[in-house]
């Protein structure tokens, strides 16, 4: 494994004096203050949950989904790479023989406990088949029972990718 040497920033005299940086920060604060006071419609905060955020990009790590093949069937082959990579160990898979001729293996059970999940995206990175994604845009997940936070294979398959609005 190679070693990457990262250059440390902030060593210059200007950086070490701190004063210019403080003034730089104050400038931003003042600019926002004046904009907000002169035109309230430009205020960056909004009354959630009545107003929903509109700037969630497709790169945002929301609740997972299991993707499908062109024929609409599940893409996951139960290789367990996601479960292996998951630092929270919250992906539970049981594999079975796939009989429909599309592939040899598929998950019988595929559940993610989103209460345990830390939304790191490790599972998405690890998947060799692009079978799991976190691009649903679902950023808030509500349920009444703990058990409902354990998302089943069917539930994960029913999630769709968020439509790009930006």
């Amino acid at each position, binding site marked *: 494994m190679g070693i990457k040497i990262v250059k440390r920033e902030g060593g210059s005299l200007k950086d070490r004096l701190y004063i210019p940086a403080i003034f730089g920060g104050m400038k931003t604060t003042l600019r926002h203050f004046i904009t907000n006071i002169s035109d309230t419609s430009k205020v960056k905060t909004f009354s959630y949950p009545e107003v929903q955020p509109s700037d969630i990009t497709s790169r945002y790590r929301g609740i997972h989904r299991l993707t499908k093949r062109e024929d609409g069937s599940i893409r996951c082959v*139960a*290789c367990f*790479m996601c479960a*292996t990579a998951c630092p929270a160990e919250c992906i*539970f898979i049981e594999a079975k*023989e796939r009989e429909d001729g599309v*592939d*040899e*293996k598929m998950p019988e059970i595929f559940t993610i406990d989103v209460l345990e999940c830390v939304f790191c995206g490790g599972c998405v990175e690890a998947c*060799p088949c692009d079978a799991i994604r976190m691009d649903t845009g679902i950023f808030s997940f509500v349920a009444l029972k703990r058990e409902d936070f354990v998302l089943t294979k069917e539930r994960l398959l029913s999630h769709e990718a968020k439509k790009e609005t930006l």
Partner: protein
Amino acid sequence: MAHITVDGTLLEVTEGALLIEELLHNKINIPHFCYHPSLGKDGNCRMCMVEIEGQKRPQIACDTPIKNGMIVRTKGAKIDQVKRAMLELELINHPIDCPICDQAGECQLQNYYMDVGLYESRLSTPKTHGQKRVDLGANVVLDQERCVLCTRCVRFTQNIAKTNELGVLKRADHSVITTFPGTQLSSPYAMNVVDLCPVGALTNKDFRFHKRVWFLQSQEAICNGCARGCSLFVDHHKEKYKEEVIYRYRPRLNVDVNGYFICDAGRLSYKNENACQGVHPLIRGKISESEYAEGKLLKLLKRHQGKTLWLISSTLSVEEMVRVQQVARTYGSFVSAYGALYEDVSFGDTFLKCSDRSSNGRSLKLLHIDASEGYFETALDEATLVITVGRNDVDTLDAKGYSNSVVIVSQQPLEACEGVELFLPMSSHMARDGSFINIDGRIQYSACAIPLSPDVKPLLSILANVLNDGVFTCKEVWEHHLSDRAPFLDVSFENLPIKIDL
């Protein structure tokens, strides 16, 4: 003795031996597919190339006899280039199925590729295809596309199993492994080809898709399927929020007993272990706490002092047997092993499998535990309490017209508990360590103690509580009870495995 230099290091080796043998023996990484110590060289895969000084081209280490003073190089850009080219060739038609391949994680093709692979495909034509998911019989599944044609499996059926079911069909790119028309793998050792296959072409149908191998933990054990006592690896895993489960047994090299192989029956006997899970102590059929049940055992022993018969099984370890004898001596009871020795002529053969199915029957004789019917009947006449250990064959007692109290201490779940005063579960074979004497008199220690049922105690602990003498471990039992009695006078726990005269 000869001396050779490998990558600048001087090694002392056997003259005339195969170079690859000595390299592997000295833990030098040398990629190879077709060579296997049990099958010898075949020279077909060309993965084991090394540079030998004085030779123009790289040579295969598996077919090079050692000469004194050889200078060998196994590393370096030149040799890596050769290996990379070989791997590229192997992978031209390979399906790269790793996500669905059970071998992934213990696949030599993956390992070598990670070391010296090309990492970029230069293939522009479609891959040739073979059959996938072919059931060869005997729990072996073949994927022709993943095969590297090392012929280890073919040579196994030819030279070891001597059943000759496998062969290579067609030529060149289209060569595939197949069974001869109308045949299936039929040898009782057939599943060894799964371990022999260096890639995922032959996989185990019984293990198929049950677990990715990198989750498994391995422990060393001795098989209890018959009197041979083959060495095993026990692969197990505890899933989050679940109990420990054994997923498979694999042969463990033991040149004195089983070599590189085990029989299929032994390999599949891991299921018995999992079947012993989920048992509870029962007092007259009612589930009870284990501490309470142990107290009950002690109470019964005291009440029936001098009138107790211990009926033990031949699956107990030497340590357990001698401890039962110790308890019996303390409480003046009888010990019998009637019906514990059983022969199964249909099981035995001339390779590994023995007709004697008792894993530790020899110890009964060595410890002078009577297995005769006469002794059993006399003891039974006097007994008011029978404690069966490691077995729950109440019908043996019924057949003799016995109608007094019965206590069962066993690893197997109880089928019917009628008339059983107390049922106390004990750890099954792979859940406790112990020593076993095999058919040749070899005392082998099985170290595997997987907590398959966390609430169930090993027999040694149960007996230590009965005797209240703090002798819990096998080592302590050897020190206190075994090393000072014939025929174990020269044996200590530390020098196991050791062969004694039967």
